[in-house]
């Protein structure tokens, strides 16, 4: 009997040389998704000077129409320490589900930071250092981004200050330890370190925090640092661009497996997890006539795509960033404290949002009990504990496989297991104890945060 194959591995030399820019294959202009903020008095001069936040060379490739953007040699060399990552056939999960579906997962959790976030952290740290920046600040939800960026900053000799969402900071103390081990300073957000944090704490002393607030604090902190800049872990074009190494490798690996996915699934925080795997498959669909469904999976505790609005909104609570057109729950939205599954950001990346608006991808949401149930099944069959974020994708993959069984339809499923859950075991502990609650967001709560959306009409610049 022919031994079945579990892993589809690539050689180090197969590490992608280019990132994939989806703007070459979708009709989305920058002006469709970015806008000058109109808030405040348009006659007021806001400042006398402004430091550029993004290195131009990092921004350039992410907004042009070139299909492929070269990965700098130094970044690729760092990637090759952990990449290419494995593609694995989940035989045991398939057996447990008694499904005719073939399930493959791309595992991004084997690098030092434990998640896919390192792919963009390394690239960003490289570009910022090259631009002469000395320190970065950032907001982090569950902590994977802060962890990855702390490692990348340590690689490139950059200082780092992380504002971590308070409830996650308290739930996942070892993430903070990892960040501090790599030289980062970590504050639980909202904090008394910034005016934004102090203002919120004055109004809500027991606030659990949100990524929106954490980013606002990080932005304020960066503006006061002599040579500091604010870096983000998801949502922005350049971040999604960097993550496409996941999908580019997966395309090669699926070819080696002799199959092509009918459905590609990724968890949906701000979008880089999902986009990193899915975007290269969109290219194949757009140019090679494949028919792969792309499915983004979000928690019902933060359902921006399934229950939000496609609108102009701010990226954080400060209201000082340019507005973005995105599926959003409103920048004042905060996921409930009982939610243990990450993916807390109020908005979806503008590129993901634009594709969803055009019907080019699907979105589903799940309660956290079903998500952790899927994570536990994955751990018991594949012997890999997925991060709670990744468990959202696992849940959807299981449902697709069960549907394939019911319909007796062979189907090829590919999902992104974006990280391991070994630093999130407190969440699994809650699941095992039966202490997890589902928390679908009440309609009035969504309505209240959407009511705080900025003016949707474009700003008229004074003559």
């Amino acid at each position, binding site marked *: 009997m022919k031994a079945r194959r579990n892993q589809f591995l690539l050689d180090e030399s197969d590490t992608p040389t280019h990132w994939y820019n989806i703007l070459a294959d979708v009709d989305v202009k920058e002006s469709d998704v970015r806008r000058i903020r109109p808030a405040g008095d348009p006659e007021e001069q806001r400042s006398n000077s402004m*430091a*550029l936040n993004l290195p131009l060379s990092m921004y350039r490739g992410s907004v042009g129409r070139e299909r492929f953007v070269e990965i700098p040699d130094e970044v690729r060399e760092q990637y090759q320490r952990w990449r290419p990552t494995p593609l694995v056939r989940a035989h045991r999960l398939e057996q447990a589900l008694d499904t005719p579906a073939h399930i493959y997962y791309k595992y991004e959790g084997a690098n030092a930071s434990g998640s896919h976030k390192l792919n963009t952290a390394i690239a960003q740290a490289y570009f910022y250092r090259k631009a*002469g920046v000395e320190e970065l600040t950032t907001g982090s939800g569950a902590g994977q981004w802060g962890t990855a960026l702390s490692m990348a900053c340590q690689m490139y000799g950059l200082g780092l200050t992380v504002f971590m969402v308070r409830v996650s900071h308290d739930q996942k103390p070892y993430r903070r330890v990892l960040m501090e081990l790599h030289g980062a300073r970590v504050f639980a957000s909202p904090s008394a370190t910034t005016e934004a944090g102090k203002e919120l704490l004055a109004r809500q002393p027991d606030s659990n925090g949100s990524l929106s607030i954490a980013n606002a604090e990080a932005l304020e902190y960066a503006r006061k640092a002599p040579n500091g800049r604010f870096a983000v872990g998801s949502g922005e074009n350049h971040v999604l661009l960097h993550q496409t190494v996941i999908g580019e490798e997966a395309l090669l690996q699926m070819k080696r497996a002799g199959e092509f996915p009918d459905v590609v699934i990724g968890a949906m925080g701000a979008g880089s997890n999902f986009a990193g795997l899915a975007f290269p498959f969109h290219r194949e669909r757009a140019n090679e006539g494949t028919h792969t469904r792309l499915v983004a999976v979000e928690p019902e505790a933060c359902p921006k795509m399934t229950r939000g609005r496609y609108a102009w909104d701010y990226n954080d609570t400060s209201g000082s960033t340019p507005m973005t057109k995105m599926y959003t729950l409103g920048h004042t939205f905060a996921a409930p404290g009982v939610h243990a599954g990450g993916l807390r950001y109020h908005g979806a990346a503008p590129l993901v949002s634009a594709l969803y608006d055009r019907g080019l991808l699907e979105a589903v949401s799940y309660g956290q009990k079903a998500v952790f149930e899927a994570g536990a099944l994955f751990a018991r069959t594949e012997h890999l504990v997925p991060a709670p974020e990744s468990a959202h994708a696992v849940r959807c993959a299981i449902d697709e496989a069960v549907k394939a069984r019911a319909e007796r339809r062979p189907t090829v499923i590919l999902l992104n297991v974006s990280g391991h859950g070994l630093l999130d075991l407190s969440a699994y502990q809650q699941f095992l104890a039966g202490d997890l609650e589902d928390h679908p967001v009440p309609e009035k709560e969504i309505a209240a945060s959407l009511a705080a959306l900025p003016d949707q009409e474009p700003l008229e610049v004074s003559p």
Partner: protein
Amino acid sequence: MHDDGAEIAIRTRKIMVDVLGLRLNPEDITDEISLYSPRIQLDSLTMLQLLLALEGEFDVQLDDEDVMEADLRTVGDLMQLIQRSVRDTSREGNA
């Protein structure tokens, strides 16, 4: 590329009007005007968009460190940055 300061200034002002959607005539954009005044309202995003457009217009690639360090307050500051880049690119071409 051979270009003089006056021509660079004219072309830069025109790009500013086009990219930023300004309701101004290019000749009304004087060097003293603050880039953050209500008439120009440059922000972090439009700054990037403008710089990319100027790169395309003059066929130059601005140096990351120069741009990060630049204290761009007025239209004149921006003009100087672009003129410097055009001059440096021209020198490299002639070397």
